[in-house]
């Protein structure tokens, strides 16, 4: 359950977050604000999915590869 909620975060960050950061200036690391915001969420999405992978019991069993569960 918790991992599905984690999976929801990128949707909120990108779809809802865009509404609050739809502007150009001040440039962040030389990038327009909206672009920098989306970039941040690419990195966060990868980190979140790594956490999900680590928490997900489906990846704990070493022997279930290729077998329907």
């Amino acid at each position: 359950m918790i991992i599905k909620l984690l999976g929801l975060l990128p949707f909120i960050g990108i779809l809802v977050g865009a509404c609050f950061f739809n502007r150009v200036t001040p440039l962040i690391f030389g990038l327009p604000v909206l672009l920098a915001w989306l970039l941040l969420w690419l990195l966060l999405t990868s980190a979140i999915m790594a956490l999900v992978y680590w928490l997900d019991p489906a990846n704990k069993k070493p022997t279930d590869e290729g077998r329907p569960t």
Partner: protein
Amino acid sequence: MTGSAALIILAATTIFALCLGLAARRGKDMGLEQWTVGGRGFGIVFVFLLLAGEIYTTFTFLGGSGYAYGKGAPTYYILAYGALAYVISYWMLPPIWRYANQHKLISQPDFFSAKYDSPALGVLVALVGIVALVPYLVLQFKGLGIIVELASYGAVSHTVAVWIGAIVVTIYVMVSGVHGSAWTAVLKDIAILAVVLFLGIYLPFHYYGGYGAMFTAIQTAKPGFLALPSHGQSLAWFDSTVLLTALGFFMWPHSFGSVYTAKHERVFRQNAILLPLYQLILLFVFFVGFAAILQVPGLKGGDIDLSLFYLSRKTFSPAVLGIIGGAGVLTALVPGSMIMMTGATLAVNNVYRAFRPSASEAHRMRLTRLLVPVVALVAVWFTLQGGRTIVALLLMGYSFVTQLFPSLIMSLKRENPVPREAAFAGICVGVATVAVLTLTDASLAHLFPNAPEVFQDLNIGIVALGLNVIVLAVVTLVSRAFAVRSAPAPHA
């Protein structure tokens, strides 16, 4: 003759790719399963590359930079939707893979017809896939045409360039099938990574002295161009487009097909971590398009897709342009071959076979190979009609394929409440809505002049998806009501 160096490099790249395809084929027994799903033996690296291979196509290379050049901030959607699609894929792909592997499925329509126990639904899904693949293939050909035309410095006309591109892809597919795709994907990804990083770093520094300076210059010349506008491609457009494309990402018949090539299901979960990072390359594609805004101004309409090559031609020698073009050829060749193979396979295995179940595998195999050039001809015809930008073409395809999402996701539930009639009706309504709105070029603002602007700016694909879900729900409820009254409902 200024362009001969560029053309020679282009030709050499193409021949090399063909040889790789041939080499990959050797020693393999090319049955239908081998030809299309690679015998289900691909590990994380190849599946990663096949999935990534479809993302880094001419669409990103020329379309992404062109859209950044011509439209500005709306192009950011390309950065966003991939990440969300991978999040979805973490939960969606493993059950698809398990089921497909269990039932030895070869194509996407197989999945629908097995899950819903309805060959007719399989035919419908195949037809939707074929229709959606056409604009996707058209954009690859358009990209190849642009590359050959510009790298030849005008010696080869646009029409001839498109024909050359189409012929090369056709030969490539007929020679190698999916093994060719996977091997060339390796080569392609290295080439595109190098070229895009180089251009995305070199051009902004060369012309402006850095990213901050470049964006400041654009903001001064075109205030607000780097944020979403309040009308048209507004936030409503952005969110609806990101959602549409994220949901549709794996609904493409060829993406669905590459899911089957995996050796085990964990591959997808690992890819969900890695692929969002791979999206970072897109940033550098955008930088190229942004750098072109003030350096090669004036490209309009469908010509915005030329911006990367116009700026490259202005900046570099023909030999360097040839290398950039060579990478570009590969980005069209890999997905182009995948799309053509998928289209032909769908037409034969999922449409033709439904009407002639007695056709032998050898017969179908022959027919698939014969259909490849036919698919190419159709796409060439559409390409030469011209007009639309690469991004507009892809969004059109997405509007079609995403209509498959509701029925697919419901079919993954342990007890799917949706009967085949409802799936059929939902997909039909969604696809018909997209077809009518696209063919008539109608915008929502035009059809509903009094509706709030948030609604008017929505991507039409999302509106069609909404209708699709409503129809699916209504037909499900109605048929359940009937089933309860007449007999106890058997669970599919």
